[in-house]
């Protein structure tokens, strides 16, 4: 419990630091939104008036406090470009990104864990070379190409889905999720390959350890040794890696969103950067940072349950 308390306090502090740094970073970048939205023709008086109106003339710390309080309430300001609240813009895109993320994470776990186990089993056989080939192919293939390939095979040739359809979660959830499976595959394939490779080497390392020999000396079957003894130990390092994948996927996949014409967070971010739409960029950076920190927090807590040695330290 004490461990959890400590971790929570660390989490909050890290989040505060990150939000502050994010805020400062956009303070430092020259050219604020006031100048931008009025254009180059504006008189200094006009700019000054707008700055006053937007509250840019207050001290940095006061503005940080205001911004943070608003952000906690979900108010990230107004987008210059869309002239809409940033919160609303993000909210509209979240279902796409979250569905895509959850599907690709599920696919990754469902495929990578059994593949990791099976491919270690087949070590020292001819199949090993074939496994290696597919793992490396999966890691090397660029997601956009995979996206195009999937569109071509499943969309254009087999006609299992119609590429470029615009669907929304609220109107037709099942249709929406079905359509999302294809981009999810494009996102998941490289992750599956990486995680399989990682888990495989982790399992291999464990198989060489003394406790595995002990387990066999007790009369354990291969199954028993793998599932009761090896897997739990082998997953410990994989969890950190997995958390990185999760954070990455939740941040949105720009390329895949583009290929499948999905209105997700990744595309919003790219457009916003192009337009110098700082409130959006700020909000998304904050979202990604918070996500990474949160994932790390979850990993730390998970470790405690999986590896009893962590508690002892």
């Amino acid at each position: 419990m004490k461990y959890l308390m400590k971790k929570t306090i660390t989490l909050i502090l890290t989040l505060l630091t990150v939000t502050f740094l994010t805020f400062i970073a956009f303070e430092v970048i020259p050219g604020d939104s006031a100048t931008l939205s009025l254009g180059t023709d504006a008189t200094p008086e006009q700019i000054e008036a707008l700055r006053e109106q937007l509250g840019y003339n207050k001290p940095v710390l006061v503005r940080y406090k205001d911004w943070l309080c608003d952000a906690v309430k979900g108010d990230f300001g107004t987008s210059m470009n869309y002239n809409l609240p940033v919160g609303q813009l993000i909210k509209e895109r979240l279902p796409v990104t979250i569905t895509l993320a959850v599907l690709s994470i599920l696919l990754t776990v469902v495929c990578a864990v059994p593949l990791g186990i099976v491919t270690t089993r087949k070590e020292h056989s001819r199949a090993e070379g074939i496994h290696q080939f597919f793992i490396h192919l999966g890691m090397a293939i660029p997601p956009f190409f995979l996206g195009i390939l999937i569109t071509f095979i499943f969309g254009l040739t087999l006609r299992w889905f119609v590429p470029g359809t615009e669907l929304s979660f609220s109107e037709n959830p099942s249709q929406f999720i079905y359509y999302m499976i294809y981009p999810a595959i494009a996102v998941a394939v490289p992750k599956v390959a990486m995680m399989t490779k990682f888990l495989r080497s982790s399992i291999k390392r464990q198989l060489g350890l003394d406790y595995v020999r002990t387990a066999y000396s007790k009369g354990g079957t291969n199954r028993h040794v793998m599932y009761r003894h090896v897997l739990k130990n082998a997953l410990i390092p994989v969890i950190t890696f997995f958390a990185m994948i999760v954070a990455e996927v939740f941040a949105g996949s720009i390329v895949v969103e583009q290929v499948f014409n999905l209105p997700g967070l990744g595309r919003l971010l790219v457009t916003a950067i192009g337009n110098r739409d700082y409130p959006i960029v700020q909000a998304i950076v904050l979202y990604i940072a918070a996500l990474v920190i949160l994932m790390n927090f979850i990993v730390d807590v998970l470790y405690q349950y999986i590896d009893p040695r962590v508690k002892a330290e």
Partner: protein
Amino acid sequence: MGNTILEVNDLHVGFVENKQYAPIVSGITFSISKGEILGIVGESGSGKSITSLTIMDLLKHNGKVKQGQLLFEGSDLLTMTKEEKRRKKANEIAMIFQEPMTSLNPVIKVGPQVEEVLALHKEPNPGEYKKRVISMFEDVGLKDPEAIYGKYPHQLSGGMRQRVMIAMAMILRPKLLIADEPTTALDVTVQKQILELLLQMNKKYGTSIIFISHDLGVVRKLCDRVIVMYDGAIVEQGTINEIFECPKEEYTKKLLAAVPSMRKHEEQEEAATVEQEEETPAILTVKDVTVGYTVKGRGIFGKKTTKTIVKGVSFDIKEGEIFGIVGESGSGKSTLSKAIVGLTPHASGEITMQEAHPQMVFQDPYSSLNPAKTIGSILSEPLIIEGKLKKEERRRKVEQMLEEVGLKGDYYGRNIAKLSGGQRQRVAIALALMTNKKFIVLDEPVSALDVTIQDQILKLLKRLQQQHRLSYLFISHDLNVVYELCDRIAVMKDGVIVEQGTRDEIYYHPKEAYTRQLIEAIV
């Protein structure tokens, strides 16, 4: 032969690498009777461990039994199906291993780890399993067995873990127990207890034991009969008395002669040590030294706490003297040595030396030298740092030093990775001597080596010490080795020096109870 439990006939085992068969065990034949304790001794590479792993069917994937028979109660283990062999494991033949630290699964509680043996062999009454485990824990002398049941391996000491391993091996009352170096990783006092426990199991349940060890002293104490193995073959076998009192083969004689032992010297005159003149200046003075680690708590607010390892230790080492520090693991002897060399800062007290930066030789020659470098480049390094010699001079000096530590020939350009443990330790010693230092700290320099190699290294150290009038601080847990080499000795326990004196004072007239306990545990 109704009394024989296991009969090994002409067993050939090897490894297949690149489709080439490399023999490890070539044609050994022996047997063990019911209730007997059979010792197998040999140095690393002799094939003793491979023999035991073959019996347990635990060979790695590239291990191959080429020919032979393993008759367990008359039926051949080698021709059985995998399932038949699996049912024999733990049930009829069980095994305990060298490393109690790593032999248990770190993420599962020890109780359930023992309990699963019962489930794997489909023992009746699953409801009774836990009770059986707890009573077995009691049987192997674990105090508070119910609490131990719920502990993770890292919460137990090495001795306790080995007891858990024995409980795991004995819970189904196997007919044969294979113990592969079960006490090598343990402290002397704990080693004694574990040996007694094995003997007790043997008496109580009539279990035959194959006891594999490189430690002849231990084998002599425990076993009824002994097999001496060398290079995959049996050199000699016989009863303890036959082997230890009148060995027939050259190799056995050599092996016995190499064992450092205070008992061997007992009849010799006691005043063999060189008397130190009072005037000899001290090369190192340690005065009231305390060493501790700062342990930082986890997280941003983790409190810093200091853990004291060495508590107010004082001693001095005179020129040309070999000073030994003995103690069990956790006594602080290694931490103290690191503080002296300057690898760890000391919290308080004074360390004064005649010359700065004493050199150190570490325990594990396999991990303490960079395997990617050549011997020449490793040994040249201190000379380059010193910056006094030119390239050719450096090379000449390195070659000269290599010859001095007994590595004649073209070692200069060779890679560390290709050397044996003994050769590596010679390189480490050469490295320590490179800059003409008079004082060297040796931290368990021979504990990782085989007896005959150990003997050679000890002789080398002694020769170098006499030739160059060196002083050593020699740290070891092995009281026999310390006896062989040291002039004066300090006994450490829990960070303090319990007793210090000349070798003979410590070994023959110990004043403190702890010292006596250590001396008595020597086998």
